[in-house]
């Protein structure tokens, strides 16, 4: 397969996943807003949401203050935010467009339909309802796309590149969310014990893991348990362990079970990352330690993406001359 094609598939996977994750985070936040009464809590929550879905400092540089309507627009459709959901979906569509000769027709159609059906700015009457519909449609689109991929694509090279993109994006996002939540927990350590419960509940909801978590754990939201679940739970599809082991399996298949000279670096790194996950006793860690671990881990994830791209020449080739 052409490197350019592999690159497009990889980024299609990443961008749909990114848009879906961000849409879920924003959706959860909009529901929380209805519950929170304290103005200060509300503003602080926005800071975390911005940090998870884009960049808080970038936002503040552009707008200077936290204001719900502005933030929502910034995260959904603003052309000033390169990680806005609209931008991610649009990149995914463009990627599908340039690779549609090897994709199931329905996959392209699903992404194209989202693009065509998007209301233009100011077209909807009730802004909040409009946003909720938008987020819902976006999440549905991503899930439908995922369904088409799973149900109709051969488990060959194109499939692998889409999925690896998805898993790497997911792993990175999970690490990021945990990082942001830990930071928040640390910053008001001991102030209000109820907050801790609320933060870890949010983390689970951001990652669509609440239902799965309470099936096996008490609903007390102990930070150790939540972290263990979101980092190490092999059966939960958004846990870091799940994503990394699936990346490793997919690449092993891609290489026919062999480690060749060009893939040594990639396999070594995967091994290190997996060992880090399994050998760390998360429950025993102090908050500071945990933060260091998560920081390190987030860097490892980015590193993994980089090495993966280099191994398969995915860095977009420079135009001839």
């Amino acid at each position, binding site marked *: *397969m052409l490197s350019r094609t592999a690159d497009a598939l990889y980024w299609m996977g990443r961008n749909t996943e990114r848009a879906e994750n961000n849409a879920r985070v924003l959706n959860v936040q909009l529901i929380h807003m209805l519950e929170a009464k304290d103005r200060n809590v509300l503003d602080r929550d926005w800071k975390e949401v911005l940090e998870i879905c884009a960049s808080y400092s970038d936002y503040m540089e552009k707008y200077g203050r936290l204001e719900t309507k502005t933030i929502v627009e910034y995260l959904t459709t603003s052309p000033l935010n390169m990680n806005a959901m609209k931008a991610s979906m649009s990149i995914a569509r463009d990627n599908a*467009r*340039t690779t549609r000769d090897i994709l199931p027709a329905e996959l392209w*159609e699903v992404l194209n339909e989202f693009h065509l059906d998007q209301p233009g700015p100011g077209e909807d009457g009730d802004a909040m309802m409009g946003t909720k519909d938008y987020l819902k449609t976006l999440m549905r689109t991503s899930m439908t796309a995922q369904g088409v991929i799973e149900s109709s694509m051969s488990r060959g090279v194109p499939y692998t590149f889409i999925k690896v993109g998805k898993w790497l994006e997911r792993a990175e996002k999970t690490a990021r969310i945990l990082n942001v939540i830990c930071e928040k927990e640390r910053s008001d350590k001991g102030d209000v014990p109820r907050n801790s419960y609320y933060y870890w509940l949010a983390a689970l909801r951001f990652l669509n893991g609440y239902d799965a978590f309470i099936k096996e754990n008490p609903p007390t939201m102990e930070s150790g348990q939540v972290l263990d679940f979101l980092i190490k739970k092999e059966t939960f599809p958004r846990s870091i362990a799940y994503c990394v082991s699936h990346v490793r399996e997919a690449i092993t298949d891609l290489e026919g079970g062999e480690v060749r000279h060009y893939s040594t670096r990639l396999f070594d790194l995967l091994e290190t990352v997996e060992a880090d996950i399994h050998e760390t006793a998360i429950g025993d860690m102090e908050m500071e330690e945990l933060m260091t671990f998560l920081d390190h881990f987030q860097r490892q994830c980015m590193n993994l993406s980089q090495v993966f791209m280099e191994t398969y020449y995915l860095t977009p*080739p*420079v*135009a001839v*001359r």
Partner: protein
Amino acid sequence: MLKNYQTGMFFDEMMNSDATPKAHYDWFYKLVEKFSDQELSEKHETAQLSFLRQGITFTVYNHEGQTERTMPFDFIPIIIPEEEWGRIETGMKQRMKALNLFLEDLYHDQKILEEGIIPRELVENNPYYYHKQIGGVDIPLDNHIFLSGVDLIRDEHGQYRVLEDNLRNPSGMSYVFQNRYVMRQVYPELFFNHDIRTLEHQISELHDTVMSHAPQKCEGDPVAVLLTPGSYNSAYYDHMFLAQQMGIELVEGRDLLVQNDVVYMKTIRGLKRVDIIYRRIDDDFLDPDAFRPDSALGVQGLLQAYKKGNVAILNGIGNGVADDKAMYVYVPDMIRFYLGEEPIIPNVETYFLSDPERLDYVLEHMEELVIKNVGASGGYDMLIGPQSTEEEREDFREKVLENPRQYIAQPTIKLSRAPAYQKGRMYPCHVDLRVFVMNGKEMNVLPGGLSRVALKEGSLVVNSSQGGGGKDTWILRSGGERDA
């Protein structure tokens, strides 16, 4: 719906002047009569949407940037009885054979110039004549024209005439397949009782045609690719569709690399050799070393690989010299010279304005003529006399006088028309037909082709960039229709 339909002074594909359908449209007419107004309008909507949803679009560039547009689809097909089609088919094969011999001759022995059949300066002044680059180069099968899209029109007597030979990068073949597909989805009833030549094996024909151009040096199974300028090109859908259907890699210039005069593509496993390139990039952008140095679409060193016989390029380089509007005039002479035959499908009568007598005549009769720039295509830089204003004619007069060699004139042909259904009513629109001819080891004409229709009432321009639409084209097997 067709009760008050007026054929006027034009040849109509479907209707007689007394508002009855022609024999080969009889069944179709009866079937359409059964649709209610509402059904027609709903089906029309469904068909247009289906193109949009599938992203069968072309890109239009204008002052507001770029927009993706679908080619409007009109459900009333152009039906051609098989005997009539047989004549077109033979005529197209004859024409392509002669044009290919002409190109081979022009880039080798130049007999036709030596014998004075075609003026040498007409060839040598042609900007698409690339003798310096590819003169004397032998290519697989000696075949320059792997795929052409010949535009045919019918005059007021129903006589088919060739309007243009497109020998470089004819586009639109994907629309032929998609028009048929949508037609079958949305109007299945209309296929009852009609025995239509299928398009089913045409893609594999095209694939075989591509593969038959493997260079002699190629060992093992040849690897073919389709080279596109990229997803921003207006015909990108066409490129994507053909690559996908043939199962060949769709590549851009930046995916290819020439090393030691061999072409490779950059894959996730490193470099992979390429033997055949079906390119949809114009000659002058192909290779910055040999043509335009500012081309970012092409591949450095490609021409050298081609000359060494390491890669086949389809269509051949340098075809532009044979399909411009000036050389067009000489195609009937080429048929006589190379084949010793009379042309089966005639040209449209054409005057060179470099001839002073003709020039005077044309300038006096601008209102009756069509004047075209020999180097332009897509309906640009042309004057349609009967539809022009005094001011436009004045502008054109100046342009022509400034550079008469650059222009030709043709009588305004009363282009045939066919009914079109748009915005809830049927009205007559001008049509033409692009016929696709594939040539490799054997020659094959795609049954039917792309019928283009000028949907703006009274307009003569069928190009999709200027508001033209498409119709399905049916070759109806002998007997016209089956018994119910």
